[in-house]
């Protein structure tokens, strides 16, 4: 699966939301993206992309876009 698609799918599955909602999502925009949701999201992304994220990146991961930026710059994931 292409990375863009894979990344999007994790968001859509974890938060059970449609694509148009996922691509603009920010931390705490919806009830489910709280600290528990964040924990689940990071776990799923780590598994999907076979990476281990560092503390600073986990807590900096504040939106759909920001997450992409982090994965690209720090973990060599190409979108």
């Amino acid at each position, binding site marked *: 699966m292409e990375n863009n698609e894979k990344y999007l799918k994790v968001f859509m599955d974890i938060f059970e939301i449609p694509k148009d909602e996922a691509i603009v999502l920010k931390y705490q925009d919806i*009830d489910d993206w*709280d*600290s*528990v*949701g964040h924990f689940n999201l990071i776990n799923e992304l780590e598994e999907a992309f076979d990476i281990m994220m560092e*503390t*600073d990146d986990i807590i900096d991961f504040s939106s759909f876009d920001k997450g992409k930026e982090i994965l690209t710059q720090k973990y060599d994931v190409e979108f």
Partner: protein
Amino acid sequence: MMWNFKEHLENIAVIEDTGIILTYGKLLEECEYLKEKMAPRSLVFIFCNNTAGDFLGYVACITNGCVPALLNYGLEKEQEQYLLNQYKPHYLWVPLSNIDEYKDFEAIYSIYNYVLLKNKNSVEKYKLYDELALLLTTSGSTGSPKFVRQSYKNILSNAKSIAKYLEITATERPITTLPMNYTYGLSIINSHLLVGATILITNKTIMQKEFWEFFKAQNATSFGGVPYTYEMLKKLRIFNMDLPSLKTMTQAGGKLLSSLHKEFAEFAEETNRKFIIMYGQCEATARMAYLPSDKNLSKIGSMGIAIPGGKLILVDATGAEITTPFTTGELIYSGDNVTLGYAESFADLEKGDERHGILDTGDMAEFDEDGYFYIVGRKKRFLKIFGNRVNLDEVERMLKGAFPNAECAVSGIDDNLWIFTTDENAQNDMRKYLSEKTGLNSSAFKSKYINEIPKNDSGKTLYNYLKFDS
């Protein structure tokens, strides 16, 4: 008098992450202003969002003899309305941004982004029991309006006991990781106010950069967490984080996995910190037991011993006290922190002490040859979800009420509640409904379609036959 603020007027009581700072002197002054605005012994609903505003509201109510009910700022609207109808509070203390939501109330005072609203309707005269200090929802209250009634003696005795066994001094700087309306979060505030310590207040979560920036800038010395918090901290690789100010970590709100208990205990020992496992319930104000940090590695999985001033015993099915180690019995606690009882509407606020210092915890436990207790099961059907107690029978009743055409039963393990239903199409709606009503992340709710709910001849659900993935 609950706290002796006059003993440490110059100390800083609270620092909010936005920069608001209140000394104990200033806090006392603000409490005096609020005293003039509120009729004595009135009932106040406080909607908490972990800021200087709700903190002041709580402290002022307790100090001035008004009775606050602490509620979550994000409480579902239907439940909020139900509580307003059941209790008819004289005042509300709400974030300024929510001022227009309450048409039956008028604003009379505002400070630190909070506003005091007075009920416009003539509130029925009702008497609050003299010793009644505070109302809290039973943790994880599943849509029920049940409050736990806590007395001044309850709060003070528990705060003193906690301050003693955690050796809290005025130099402590705990950072909030739990809501103030959650009994564990509140107990941290109460025990630190007692000794003149500085509370670092924030509503940011440990998953946010701003939280850790505040933590480091203000040299936080301690925090508390439920089991899930410790799973997150491990994910955040706290073991490698540079946190020189951190001295103490406490854990409550459910049993921590033994593997995590061990990892954090070892981390604490290696870095010369304290990691304290605790046990409690809202019905016991907050804390009932703790595991002394020097027993951390030799008593993994234990909830510890009774807190100073309290007593824990086990009783067998006949009610007789168990004296033999490793014998399972029901855990009974006694102490000054056992709360008065429950309330379901304003009429109950007149009630006195119904428990007389003895609490049946609903947990099954055993103790080892040194007298350290271990939880082994539950007498009542409940789960702890992200530190919140969720009553399974209550959840089942709620689901049956909201989905009258579906048959369902619920079961599960901590942090995972499983819904079993005969209506395949209702599964998602049921999960969403429970998440909404409890305010808990929907990932805690799982569902499974089954042909029929297994029952015995007399129609009782056979929960052991409900199989779920763990």
